[in-house]
């Protein structure tokens, strides 16, 4: 009985981290001088539906961040792109920056518990942006 439940849980809970969660590909739609906005960040997420579930919880936990603009600014800031400019950045390199940031947050313990998942702060915010 428990085995079945565990399997179902595991399937439902397929919310892995950036290596699995972010959408790979080369079709990133920013050109020179483009700005990294909420829509672009959302487009990085492979499974927005599942991310939304976590995002909903995150926003409830941190009401001060419960706005797309706030979340976008916080993510951009954490990526070292405070003015949002993503000149000449490719999708792959942005993913790489995100991945490095998330790993770094795990490394220093900047993690947050969302619905039982222990996520890096930036990836939790990315989920919240999808909500």
């Amino acid at each position, binding site marked *: 009985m428990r085995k079945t439940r565990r399997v179902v849980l595991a399937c439902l*809970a397929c919310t*892995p981290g950036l290596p699995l969660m972010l959408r790979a590909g080369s079709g990133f739609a920013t050109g020179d001088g483009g700005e990294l906005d909420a829509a672009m960040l959302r487009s990085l997420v492979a499974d927005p539906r599942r991310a939304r579930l976590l995002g909903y919880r995150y926003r409830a936990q941190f009401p001060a961040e419960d706005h797309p603009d706030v979340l976008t600014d916080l993510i951009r800031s954490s990526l070292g792109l405070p003015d949002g400019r993503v000149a000449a950045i490719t999708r792959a390199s942005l993913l790489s920056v995100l991945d490095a940031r998330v790993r770094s947050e*795990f490394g220093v313990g900047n*993690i947050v518990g969302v619905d039982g*998942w222990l996520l890096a702060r930036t990836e939790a915010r990315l989920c919240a942006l999808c909500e």
Partner: protein
Amino acid sequence: MFVDARTLPPKFIIDADVCIVGAGAAGITLARDLCGGTRKIALLESGNFDFDADTQKLYAGEVVGHAYTPLDRDRLRYLGGTTNHWQGSCRPFDALDLADWPFGVDELAPFYRQADDICQLSSHTFEPMDWSSEEARPLELGEGASLKNGVFLYSPPTRFGTAYRNDLAAAAGLTVYLNANLLQIDTDDAGTGVSGLQVACLNGNRGRARARFYVLAAGGIENARLLLNADQVQKSGLGNQYDLVGRYFMDHPFVPLAATIVAHAASPQMRFYDHHVVRGQIIEGYLSASDEVRRKEKLPPFAIGIRPAGVNVNEGVGNLRLPPALRNMMSENIANRLTYYLPRLLNRMETPVTWINDRLWLNPPGAYTTVYTCGADPDPASRVTLTNTLDALGMRETRLDWRLPADLERNMHRAHELLAQELGRSGTGRLRIESSATTGYDPMEDLGEGHHHMGTTRMHDDPRRGVVDADSRVHGIGNLFIAGSSVFPSYACDDPTMTIVALALRLSSHLKSALG
């Protein structure tokens, strides 16, 4: 030589230099190592070569406090003792594990090396990287990481009664008395020396054993019971002048489904922390707190293992849980053998087992669960006492009151936070902690024990803080020693058997010197 004590003449007398009570891992190790030369060794075993229900009933007792496996099922009372259902996990304690012991890791190291061989391990190395392979390798933990890797090596497992039966039969100067139960420990009037042991058989035959030295090696619960029952001179029991006998009972809390991990399918890092075979040796990696973090955060020793979701993580590969109806149809001995040997055989057929598992349980790729076990600070309220119920030989039965560490859940949560950090930092995966608030499942519901009985005659140089001294001699009694995990003053997250064997060898060395 084996002798059935039931066939001895009434009021028989056994004379020896050393009389050992209990033929489990400690008693057999001690007897094998002591014999030789002109020494005369008597090894008393309550059971016979195989399981017997009437003898097993002598282990019956009462469990109060936290739930615990019935005492007459948790242990086995025949030649080889509880090693007859040992899973086989081995690892030597490290320096931090032995911090509260009267001696350090250097003292035990040479005995551990011998214990490796006695436990039939194929290697002496417990260095995780020595067991790394392309298919299964430990997480790469950087300098200053909060976690450290460890590895358990699995004994075949050694059934001491079977593996060393021929040795025991052939050993010069050694006699193993089967069906011989220790009934009472007689002392001089002052209670400072043992003068003999009263021995009884279930068929009514009775006798006496006399020796220069006596060693109780009857198990982590039974050693305390034997001392507490020996209340003819010292009314609170032998060695119990400071009310310590039976206290500080310890076992490993075991949480089989503490968290879910989602990682890449067939991750070699995930596979390392489950049972697997490397160069013919079954091993299992585990993760625990680094020494620095353990000290800084005052965390207990813990071990986190990882299993594919869907595998019976409650028992692991090494222990097939038989349906009760099937078990009841078989004798305990056959059931135990089947329970332990069949999964081990299957474990060696890795590909078919994986295939079956994938299909039988529809195991989703990349989903894993953790298993958590830990030590804890010794608690005097966690204890073994006696009831007023008498067993078939007229001895008072045991009452066990196992107390869980108060901060168990908090520490388990913290341990998983540390693991989640490492999984995220290394890009291996993500972790979700189970709780009734999030997943609807409370891991504590399935909390069990490691079936490791420790601490009831703890070792300490100060008689006010320990029942035995650093030589395993009962404080205040010149010729009574204790072997086994009941002398552990603290414990790590490991199966105690290998340390029991190492300590028995150390005690043997001491007794040899004393015998001259």
